């Protein structure tokens, strides 16, 4: 029944924000951010079980842990960048939000560089020189 908690928290926060927004837009933003962080933290615990299960599966099937680590890193980068970008976007700073997303994309691409390197090396060795 965690979903009810999350939705309830979100609804209450939304109503409070609507009330406060007229008088103090600053506090409305703070409230929104705090709610976002709370829900995020709440989900962290849940997602950790999923990740540990994935890890166990990968270990039992003999997949390289490097792959799993890479994939998990991608998820983490995507989530955190998304979260930060949304918080900033809520505050009306579209510019900074897009920059945060750009940073997330670039960091994901950096993770791909070693893989691309090895694939290219293999392909080059396949070709007759």
């Amino acid at each position: 029944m965690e979903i009810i908690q999350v939705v309830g928290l979100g609804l209450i926060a939304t109503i409070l924000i609507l009330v406060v927004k007229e008088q103090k837009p600053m506090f409305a933003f703070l409230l929104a951010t705090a709610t976002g962080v709370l829900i995020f933290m709440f989900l962290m615990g849940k997602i950790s079980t999923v990740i540990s299960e994935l890890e166990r599966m990968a270990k039992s099937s003999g997949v390289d842990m490097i792959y799993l680590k890479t994939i998990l890193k991608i998820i983490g980068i995507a989530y955190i960048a998304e979260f930060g970008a949304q918080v900033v976007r809520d505050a009306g700073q579209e510019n900074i939000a897009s920059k945060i997303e750009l940073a997330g994309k670039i960091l994901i691409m950096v993770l791909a560089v070693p893989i691309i390197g090895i694939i290219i090396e293999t392909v080059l060795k396949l070709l007759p020189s």
Partner: protein
Amino acid sequence: MTWLSSWLKEIIMVVLLASFVDLILPSRSMERYVKLVLSLLILLTLLSPLIKLLTDAADIKLAGAFNRFNQQSAAGGSKGSLQQIMEQAQQLKNQQNQQSLEWAAREIAAQMQEQIRKQNGQNTAEVSVVLGMDGKDQNGGADQNPYIKGVTVVLRQEDEAAAKQSGANPEPGQDIRIEPVTPVQVEVQMDQTKGDSKSAKASSGKEGASPPEGKSNDKAEAIKKMLGNTWGLEPETIIVQDGSAGDQKL
């Protein structure tokens, strides 16, 4: 056939993982990028037998690259990277010190060998010198001075005439300059056919050797004295070991 099954298992696992990640991705904006990386991973898994054939240790290389990336991201700001640079510099300096010490040790060994050859008239003396830095830490500054930690002399001759001769010969007047030489252990080991291991133990530490093995001890004593005088080593710190016993130990 086991490699085939393991390969298939790996492919299935990676594809499953990729689809799962696709599912829990937060938004559209990241999707293209994440999909690219995931497809690259799947491609890597598909190619893995080929990669293993063609390139050596791709896994290790990949792990190294990721580790480097991790370290870079962990180092973070300029302070961290400065620290890293300093650490690397320290490492390089230590390496350089080590190398120069080794070189100096080789030079000293060569000179000692020459001296022994001149004194005894024998070519077969093998000398190895171990140098060390005085001062507690290896990372210190310029106030460190190298000293001779240990000298090992191996003689491969049972020529008694040479041994007798060696006692009489004065040391050659070479002027060798080596900076402060402090406590030194000189170990003279002799390859002798008549293995008297007792004398080694008896004479190691003390200079007084048991009389029966006079010949070898004479020789060893002579070398010891000569080295001690030329290199400014204190006689108390010189340890003479007999060849056969030493060889057994080594």
